[in-house]
């Protein structure tokens, strides 16, 4: 890839003190089928071999990306990863708005592969979804992606084939604006969060099909019950559990796959490895957070620093200072921090189920560490995560009967009247385990585990994309889709119909339409529409923020406007990989 020049915009970030057993990064690889044998290559030998924390940066307009199997070691065991140019994450691709880029992707695996440029607006043939955009990239073959960049910001790329994304086929993608940055910074770091597992992801999926709570090691126990009895009395302890047990739902069902198997990575570095970004006190540092996880939602904070959120999903927003934000799978948030002291700060990203964390450090020099906070206490799902707005409708006795449920953080007063919900006929079958008739519509709820935690936590209500909607037309029609599932059987779908049984969704070319999503499950679902922006609306139907991935909370109703200006076949799905694989996926046809 001669035309790509290497620039390291992440300045010197040496190898931190390592726990060898935990985080030795052993790199052997086959450079294509011709190279025989696995061995330890010296870094100088290899074109894209970097230490964790020092991502290779490729920039320009022409890129050559090789997908191959590479041995990695995050846990003390050597495991095969599916990598781009031999690194985890893949190289940071830096492009410029307005340019046309050529990306030649070569498959050196034994199975087909693909790369999808997440959040990039491009012709559908370049979108990288096998079966919709193209046939995928066969072993030994190359595919030339070519498209013009009509946007700037922080994005990422990942495989859209099988479970390769879980197996580390991902990397950051940054598009620099054609003009000056709206929020200039002195330093610029990508902070990519991932969930690595030594297990074969297909086995994870198979296990979930057999026992959907396989990875949940936080389930209610008998001692929990007696503790609640002591603390709250028998009646309330029973009441807390009654509805869950009657419904056969698990209040601790926050993540399908947990820290039991995951090692959470920050820029390809396990917590013990402590990825470090260097700064000088007084500098403005831009941190580009990307959640490239397959099945993990993170809550991110940097104790001691206020973060000013300046972009969401690559799109500049009015600055919002926060202490913490939740980043769902596939979302990106850019924040600016301005540390004044010459001390270390921990970048802490705990998983939503509090089963583990990714962690790194911002410090004036390498090797420094700050205190790593304890994981927050696990919370049970709240009644509003089960019943939506209805949890507030029963002020008479409901609250009394649901002690310990925090309703704080939810603006009751500002709650818009719940619009009528229309369940699909296909939602009344074995594939669906609950219906929410009165979903909550408010966007100001940061979500389970973040409500009322004493910190200023970002919510979607805080996001205001600068410049307003791209298309000022009122949506001409509405498509309502329900996010559905059967947790017990690990079935996931839209409207109760999984992808393999589903017909496409048709958008008329050029139309402006509204998509209404109602989450009839107790899990969060980051829903990603390929090819077109999702312009999130507030409960009153006014423009809120432009995103590519919209996280819909349990029992929540959310709407967004889409301009169908991209003819072709597009993927539309939950970005939790195992939900997608189970069928929470649709084809959108713009024609």
């Amino acid at each position, binding site marked *: 890839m001669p035309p790509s020049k290497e620039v390291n915009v992440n300045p010197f970030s040496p190898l931190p003190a390592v726990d060898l057993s935990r985080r030795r990064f052993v790199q052997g690889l086959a450079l294509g089928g011709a190279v025989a044998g696995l061995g330890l290559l010296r870094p100088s030998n290899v074109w894209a071999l970097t230490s964790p924390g020092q991502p290779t940066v490729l920039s320009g307009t022409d890129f050559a990306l090789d997908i191959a199997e590479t041995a990695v070691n995050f846990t003390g065991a050597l495991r095969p990863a599916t990598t781009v140019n031999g690194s985890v994450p893949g190289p940071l691709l830096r492009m410029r708005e307005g340019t046309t880029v050529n990306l030649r992707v070569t498959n050196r695996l034994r199975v087909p592969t693909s790369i999808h440029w997440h959040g990039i607006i491009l012709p559908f043939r370049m979108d990288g979804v096998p079966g919709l955009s193209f046939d995928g990239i066969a072993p030994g073959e190359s595919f030339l992606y070519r498209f013009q960049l009509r946007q700037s910001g922080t994005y990422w790329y990942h495989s859209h084939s099988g479970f390769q994304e879980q197996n580390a086929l991902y990397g950051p993608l940054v598009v620099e604006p054609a003009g000056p940055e709206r929020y200039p910074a002195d330093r610029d770091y990508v902070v990519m969060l991932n969930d690595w597992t030594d297990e074969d992801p297909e086995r994870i999926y198979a296990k979930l099909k057999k026992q959907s709570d396989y990875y949940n090691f936080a389930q209610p126990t008998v001692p929990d019950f007696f503790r609640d009895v002591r603390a709250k009395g028998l009646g309330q302890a*029973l009441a807390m559990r009654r509805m869950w047990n009657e419904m056969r739902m698990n209040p601790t069902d926050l993540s399908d796959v947990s820290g039991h198997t995951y090692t959470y990575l920050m820029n390809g570095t396990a917590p013990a490895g402590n990825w470090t970004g260097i700064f000088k006190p007084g500098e403005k540092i831009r941190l580009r957070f990307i959640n490239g996880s397959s099945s993990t939602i993170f809550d991110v904070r940097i104790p001691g620093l206020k973060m000013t959120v300046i972009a969401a999903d690559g799109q500049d927003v009015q600055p919002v200072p926060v202490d913490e934000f939740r980043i769902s799978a596939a979302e990106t948030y850019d924040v600016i921090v301005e540390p004044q002291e010459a001390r270390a700060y921990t970048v802490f990203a705990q998983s939503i189920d509090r089963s583990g964390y990714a962690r790194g450090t911002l410090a004036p020099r390498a090797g420094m560490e700050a205190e790593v906070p304890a994981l927050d206490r696990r919370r049970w799902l709240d009644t509003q995560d089960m019943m939506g707005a209805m949890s507030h409708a029963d002020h008479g006795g409901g609250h009394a*009967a649901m002690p310990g449920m925090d309703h704080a953080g939810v603006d009751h007063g500002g709650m818009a009247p719940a619009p009528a919900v229309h*369940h699909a006929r296909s939602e*009344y079958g074995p594939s669906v385990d609950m219906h929410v008739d009165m979903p909550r519509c408010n966007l100001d709820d940061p979500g389970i585990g973040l409500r009322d935690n004493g910190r200023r936590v970002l919510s979607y209500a805080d996001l205001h994309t600068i410049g307003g909607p791209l298309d000022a037309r009122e949506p001409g029609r509405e498509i309502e889709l329900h996010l559905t599932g059967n947790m017990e059987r690990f079935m996931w779908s839209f409207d109760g119909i*999984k992808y393999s049984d*589903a017909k496409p969704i048709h958008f008329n070319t050029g139309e402006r339409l509204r998509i209404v999503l109602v989450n009839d499950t107790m899990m969060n679902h980051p829903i990603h529409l390929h090819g077109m922006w999702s312009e999130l609306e507030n409960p009153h139907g006014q423009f809120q923020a432009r995103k590519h991935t919209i996280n819909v909370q349990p029992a929540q109703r959310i709407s967004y406007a889409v301009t169908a200006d991209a003819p072709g076949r597009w993927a539309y799905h939950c970005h939790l990989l195992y939900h997608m694989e189970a069928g929470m996926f649709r084809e959108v046809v713009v024609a």
Partner: protein
Amino acid sequence: MSMKRRITTLSLHRRLLAALLLALPLAAAAQSVPAASSSAAPVAMDAMPGMDRAGMHHTPMPVSASSTAEPAAKAPVKKAKKLHAPAAPSAAPAGTQRMHHMDHGAMPPMDHGSMHGMDHGAPPATPAAGGHAMPGMDHQAMPEMDHGSMPGMDHGATPGTEATPGMAMGPMQGGRAPADARSGDYSDGIAASPAHGLHLHGSAPAGMLLIDQLEAFHGRDANGQSWEAEGWYGNDNDKLWLRSEGERSGGKLEDASLEAFWNRNVATFWSTQLGVRHDFGAGPTRNWAAFGVQGLAPYWFEVEATAYVGPAGRTAARLRADYELRFTQRLILQPEAEVNLYGRADPARGIGSGVSDAALGLRLRYDIRREFAPYVGVVWTRRFGATASLARAEHQAVFDRQWVAGVRIWF
């Protein structure tokens, strides 16, 4: 296994068995239209009352009873519930309390009587079980009540507003699609991508083999080994399902069965099973046609109820329920109850008609991995009625308490 008393109520057993056989297909049917009795319950956690309780109420598990007839009719589930009370508070009256709260807040016009009915929705074949009979409540009428179409049931109470018209609440689980349910088809007739099949996304088959019990038992009268296993292969809706159980004692196979079913998901937590059973071990082999239901009842009871019909007019039924009580994330107590019923005596296999035998087990396992858990436990087994008499005649035990140790494995 010692029968205390010769059964004097054989006919009752017959009736029970008949009711059970009748109830199974009914229950199965109820799954697909579980809404009939509850479609308007605003928070009908248990949207399939008939279903869920059907298996349970009919489950005669007279484990410690001296008279078999009575407990059989008396919802032995109560016993099971008692066992699990700590973690899974199943006290039904309390449950209704919660429902009350909901109702009062959100839907004043709601008929509470019907709500109770929903909670305890006893299938017509059984008297109201559980001892919290609601005065003035007509259980029999339950199935006829179509809450779904009940006019004036607008529960659209949004905060700060009174009922918003036009927002009928359905049950949170199960139920039947309302008349005005929308179509989920937004295709406008456009066909899927020709390469649709490149993504499995939901259609990949899966399989599992679970050896739930592989154990040695040590009883007062017998030692031996026993197993209980099941395996399945298929997609989300249709599976081939195999089940086997049996025991060896004194080096020879005593009693064993192998079953094969077509397992079809018919409701969120329930599937029907249609297949065959083969009995082997001591005595002549027997073959049966089998049909039943299995699923997860509210409060997390795994329930299996299967009816069998063999040549020469033989009938049988097997009911099983188990539960998991977590002491820690890995230390799990698994109570299990099983009862067998036969419509006709089969002396060659030591079986009398009526409730033949029952077992209640408590196994405490430790999940070293989810897939591998050694356990120890105690099992009480009892033979009843004519079966017990046959056993006594052969100098076999009628009642036994066995210590067991084994391993639970799945792949």
